[in-house]
Every structure is written in structure tokens, then in C-alpha cells.
């Protein structure tokens, strides 16, 4: 085992994937000489050469579109989108081409493409540098969408993503790039948990926290704090947002009967909506309280000085835990729901 940051675990994963398979190549802005603005590709151009670590012109549609062509030629391109907020110029290529080519061609064409995206906020960055666009991709059939919250997962999941014959959007929680953990660099992919499985990051009995990315850390902190208050939190790191491992999530919810979903992205039609809806469909009779969502607000990402009022923190998670913990809902309380709902105006009148 080696102690690595999450960022350097990805570097190691890329290097390993590239030496395992010489059809793997990297494309992106500033990934060569500079080694990427986060240094995730540091040293790879030197090691594998400029033909395999390609500094591209400044055009995201171009990067993803040429990667599609490279995949058609038999390559396995790993593209880097420099920041979350810069993926949108490539949206058409991702949604209409990358996601659909296998389907359109009745399986004749494979799209073993990985789209790496340094992702989400909490790092005091400039506008457009703290976006959480994952729900767009989760809603897009044909893509796999994953994220890692530990260096070990980052190392293994990156390699699994490269090995997958499906296109994978790989979100890298930039808030955790510098967080360290033990990584087994000799891990055999065959022994690793499959890419699509969720991970129980902490076992508990009282309330299930379902989350992913950097919020896993926040949820684990919340679990420690809740323990002091006598509430046991089970924290599930979903890891794979599409497909989602509902089995693991549902098993936990059936045990606890209470669930809080946490993510940074805006709430409306976000990943949390899917998780809550799926849980409700599958675990309805087991629910002791309506699932709560703790998410970014339905606003554009705010200026950095205000981001702490947008990104869910420990307190907001605990607040929601209190709500699902305290509230018992066998039958409608007399006027109770209206009351319970009163902090949230339901209509738009």
C-alpha cells in the first residue's frame, strides 16, 4: 500500500492504464507540458510521448468529437475537460454521439471513451469552475457516470473506466484532490469491487445518508458528530451514479427507515430527486419519514465568498438528520403535514 493523494492516485491510474494498453491515449487542454492545471497528467507526456498525451486546441466539442473518431479507429481515448463548467460546449458530442453510437450502430461501434471532469465546488474558485453537472449525464442513456471519493477508489475506478467498453463520465471531486489515503497500486482489477457498486462508507443503524463525491467526507464528519448526539448514521457512497446500485441503498433504507440524500448540485431534477424517487418506489413501506434532500440551492453557483451557503456542510446534513429522526409519520397528524410543510411554501401562487 502506498499513501497517495486522490489526484496522484488518478495519475497513477492513468499511467497504469496507458502501460497496460497502448491504445489508451489522453487528450485535453494543457495536459501535456503543463501536466494539467491540477497536475493530474503530470509526467505522462514525458513518459508516454506527445502522440499519446495530446495538448489539443482550445475547443471542448473538438476534443470530444475527435476522441469519438479515435475510438472509431480503435483507440481508447481519455479526455480531460479542464473544469466542470467547460463541458457544455461538448454537450452535443457527448449526448448525441458518445452516448448513442453504440445504440445507433446496433452494437457494431464501441465507444470506450473516458471523460474526466475535475468537479464541484468548495475550493474558492472563479465563476464556472465549481459546477456540478452530473445530473445531465445521469439523465442521458448510454453513458456511465461515476465518481470516487477515496484515493483507492480513484485509482481502481479510473482503470475500470478505461477498461470499460462503454463511455464513462468520470467526475473527480476537486475538493478532495489533495486528500490522502492508502492505495494498493498492485490491485488486480478482477479483485476490485465492480465499477457499478455502491460502497457502505460507514455502517450505522439510525439514518441512511446517501451521497457521493466530496460530500462523502462531509457525511462521514456528520456521522461522527451525530454519534455524539446518539444517532447512528450509515453513509453510502454511491460511487456509480449511472447505473446506480439501488440494491445497496435499498438494503440500508430498509434497515434504517430514514434517509437523507446529499449532493452539491442544484436540487430541482438533480440526482437527489432520482435517489428519493427510487427509494420511495422500492422501500415505501419501510420509510418512517419522508426522505430529505440536502443539496445546493436552485441557483447558479454563487461567488466564492458565499459558496459555503450553497455547498451542503455538516450542519445542514445534521439538520436534515434531525428532521427525519424526530418526525414519525404513521398517519397524517392533525394538521401536522401542513405544519411540517410550512417552512417550505408548496405552491407558486
Amino acid at each position: 500500500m502506498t499513501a497517495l493523494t486522490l489526484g496522484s492516485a488518478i495519475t497513477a491510474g492513468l499511467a497504469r492504464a496507458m502501460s497496460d494498453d497502448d491504445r489508451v491515449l489522453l487528450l485535453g487542454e494543457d495536459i501535456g507540458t503543463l501536466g494539467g492545471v491540477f497536475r493530474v497528467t503530470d509526467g505522462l507526456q514525458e513518459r508516454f510521448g506527445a502522440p499519446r498525451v495530446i495538448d489539443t486546441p482550445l475547443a471542448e466539442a473538438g476534443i470530444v468529437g475527435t476522441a469519438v473518431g479515435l475510438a472509431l479507429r480503435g483507440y481508447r481515448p481519455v479526455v480531460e475537460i479542464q473544469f466542470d463548467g467547460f463541458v457544455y460546449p461538448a454537450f452535443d458530442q457527448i449526448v448525441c454521439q458518445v452516448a448513442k453510437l453504440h445504440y445507433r450502430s446496433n452494437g457494431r461501434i464501441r465507444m470506450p471513451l473516458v471523460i474526466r471532469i475535475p468537479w464541484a465546488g468548495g475550493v474558492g474558485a472563479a465563476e464556472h469552475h465549481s459546477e456540478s453537472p452530473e445530473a445531465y449525464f445521469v439523465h442521458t442513456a448510454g453513458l456511465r457516470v461515476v465518481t470516487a471519493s477515496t484515493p483507492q477508489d480513484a485509482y481502481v475506478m479510473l482503470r475500470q473506466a478505461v477498461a470499460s467498453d462503454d463511455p464513462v463520465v468520470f467526475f473527480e471531486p476537486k475538493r478532495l484532490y489533495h486528500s490522502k489515503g492508502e492505495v494498493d497500486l498492485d490491485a488486480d482489477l478482477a479483485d476490485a469491487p465492480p465499477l457499478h457498486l455502491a460502497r457502505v462508507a460507514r455502517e450505522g443503524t439510525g439514518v441512511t445518508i446517501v451521497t457521493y463525491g466530496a460530500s462523502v467526507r462531509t457525511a462521514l464528519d456528520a456521522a461522527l458528530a451525530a454519534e455524539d448526539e446518539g444517532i447512528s448514521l450509515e453513509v453510502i457512497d454511491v460511487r456509480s451514479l449511472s447505473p446506480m446500485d439501488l440494491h445497496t441503498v435499498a438494503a440500508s433504507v430498509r434497515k434504517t427507515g430514514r434517509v437523507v440524500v446529499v449532493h452539491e448540485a442544484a436540487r430541482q431534477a438533480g440526482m437527489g430527486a432520482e435517489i428519493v424517487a427510487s427509494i420511495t418506489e422500492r422501500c415505501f413501506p419501510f420509510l418512517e419519514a419522508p426522505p430529505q434532500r440536502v443539496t445546493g440551492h436552485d441557483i447558479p453557483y454563487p461567488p466564492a465568498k458565499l459558496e459555503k451557503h450553497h455547498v451542503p456542510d455538516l450542519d445542514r446534513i445534521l439538520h436534515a438528520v434531525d428532521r427525519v429522526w424526530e418526525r414519525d409519520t404513521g398517519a397524517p397528524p392533525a394538521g401536522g403535514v401542513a405544519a411540517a410543510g410550512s417552512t417550505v411554501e408548496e405552491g407558486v401562487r
Partner: protein
Amino acid sequence: MTYTQTTPHHGSAVDGTAADAERTHESAARGRTPRSEDGGDVARLLEPDGTRVPDPALDPWIADLSPHELRALHRDMVLTRRLDAEGVALQRQGQLALWAPCRGQEAVQIGTAHALSAGDFAFPSYREHGVLLARGAKPEGYMLAWRGEEHSAYDHASINVAPMQIIIGAQALHATGWAMGAQRDGSTDVAVAYFGDGATSQGDVNEAMVFASSFGAPVVFVCSNNQWAISEPVTVQAKHPIAGRAPGFGIPSLRIDGNDVLACVAAMRWALDRARRGEGPSFLEAVTYRMGPHTTSDDPTRYRTVDEVERWAERDPIARFEAYLCAEGVLDDSALAEVAAAADALAAEVRAACIGAVTRAPETVFDHVYAEPHAPLAAQRAEYVEYLAGFATEEDR
């Protein structure tokens, strides 16, 4: 003049340098190329009446064309036209959901496709029926998508043609990426991106030129300027000849008569040769005309005159080539009859492929979304199959 129409020179590098532009000015000055209807110069080897005119730059590229090859070009143009007519007819009869006629554009499609080698890879739009045919797609292959049975029905790997592209311009980037791959493989394979005049306005096509130029990728951009993007005349996209765009990106370009199959072969060979020699991308603007509606859903009388269509009919690519080949003795009546019979046979095959098509089983809509197992989707499929089975049961009762 604000753009450079690069002249192909046989065997010599034409890399869009100043020297090259000089040459262009020079040849333009010689008045070599007649003016096309829409006001720009086009390079041409066959006049509309079939008269062969010399072009010192293009000539060498087709000097070696054998009578056999000339007949093959003719034959594929005729087959394409017949296939296209059959597509229109089948749509009218309700056998197809839609058809995008390519009538009038046979020369650029067949000419450029014939110049390709087997290892080259074509990235067509939705109107390149001739390219599919020339590359060897089966009738089901090119018809079933228009019937709504499949999104793409030919075998891309065996004929080296990407699925037809409906998102305007997207394929230009795919071709460029594929070419970057070919380059990395050290092969001499070339990618060809086909698109229309309208497509040149899309960011993707321009980004493709940027990437192709930066990496010197072996890709040929073939723009079939058929004067219209649905109802919009080409002047909405470009006030100046489209071929003039490419040199600014460092890509030599050539503006050719897209209704002259010999010019199309020659220009394409020039471009392919550059690519194979490692000289990078080229751009061809083939000036042609969409004789039919945009698709069978379109009503072109709303936006263009019969007059205009008639003027272009006089420049028909097949009539012109036939006149030339007959005059040269390459074709005679019996050969023409044989080609007509082949066209009839193809039409019958096409018709049979359409009418005989059986729609896939409902649950196949779940197939091939992913290459690897995907349990939630498998569950969705199972649920739907169970749901459908419920009907059978109900009906059984």
C-alpha cells in the same frame, strides 16, 4: 480576393504557402476555370455538354483512368440515381418514413468515393446514398434507417463508413479524430468527412478544421455545396465561396464543379495523395445542386424558382458524363442498356428489402444501449417484457 483557391499540382506539395497563392493567382489570371452559375470559379474537366476541357492541374490525376474505371463511375452514378428515385417512390407509397433525395449530386458522391481505398473511412451525412452504394453497402443497409426500422443498418466496419450523421457537422470532428488515429498508427489511411454548405456554419466543422490543421491529420473535407440548406440559400451561410474558408485554417482547398465526376475524382485523388504523403488535410468544395426537395417532407416551391432548377438540370452530372463517354466510345447503347438493367435490378432489390422488412421485437429497443451488462436496464427490459406478456394473457382469456 479574400480567399485562396488552391490549385492542385500533380505530385508537388501544395501546402497553402505564399508561393502557392501566387500560383493560384496565376492560374486564375489565365482564366482557366469557367465561372459557375453562382459567381465563383470552379475547376472543371467536363463542360455541361460533355466536352472535355483541359485543366493542367487536374488532368494528371485522371490520366490513368481506364475505360473500365470510367464505366464503373458511370454505372454507380446511374445506380445512385435509380436508388434515389426508388427511395422517393417508396416514401410516397408509405414504405419509407422519409427520404433525402440526392438527385443532382451523384458526381461528387461517386467521384470522391471511387477515389478512396478500402482502408479509408468515410463519414457521411444523411444525403450520401451514392457514397454508401460505392462503398458496398447492401440495400437493406441504406434503406432501413429511412423506413424507421433502424438508426443505422449497414456494417460500418466492413465497408469503412460511419453511420450516417443527422446532427449537422458533427461527423467532421469524428473524421478528424479517426485521421489522427490513422496517423498514430503510421498507416496511409485517410478519413473523409462529407457535409453540406449549411454545415460549414457549425462550430464543429470549424473546430474540425482547427484540429486537422494543428495535427496535420490525414482527412479530406468534402463540402457538397448544393446551394441550399433546406430553404436557406448558401449566401445565408457564406457571402464568399466556401472553399475560401479553409486556407485561413492552413488547409489548402479547391473549388470544383461538383457535377463533373472527372473533376471530383481528380480533386479527391489530389487530396488523398496529400494526406497519404503526410501533408495533412485538404478541403474540397464541390459546387452542385440539390435537384429534389430537401427531404420528401419538404416543399421547395416555397423558396426557389422552377427556373433555377431548370438551369441546373442542364448541367446534369450523368447526362454530361454519358455524352463524354459515348463520344469517346467508352460507352455504347448496349453498355447503357446493361447499366439500365443493373439499375432496375438494384431498384427491385431495394424495394424488396423495404417491403420485406420485418420490424424487430419490441424488447429489442433495450438492446445495445450499453456494451457491458447493465442490471437496471436489464430489469427495465424484463419489466416491459412482463408487461407485454400480460396483454397476451388478457387476450388469451
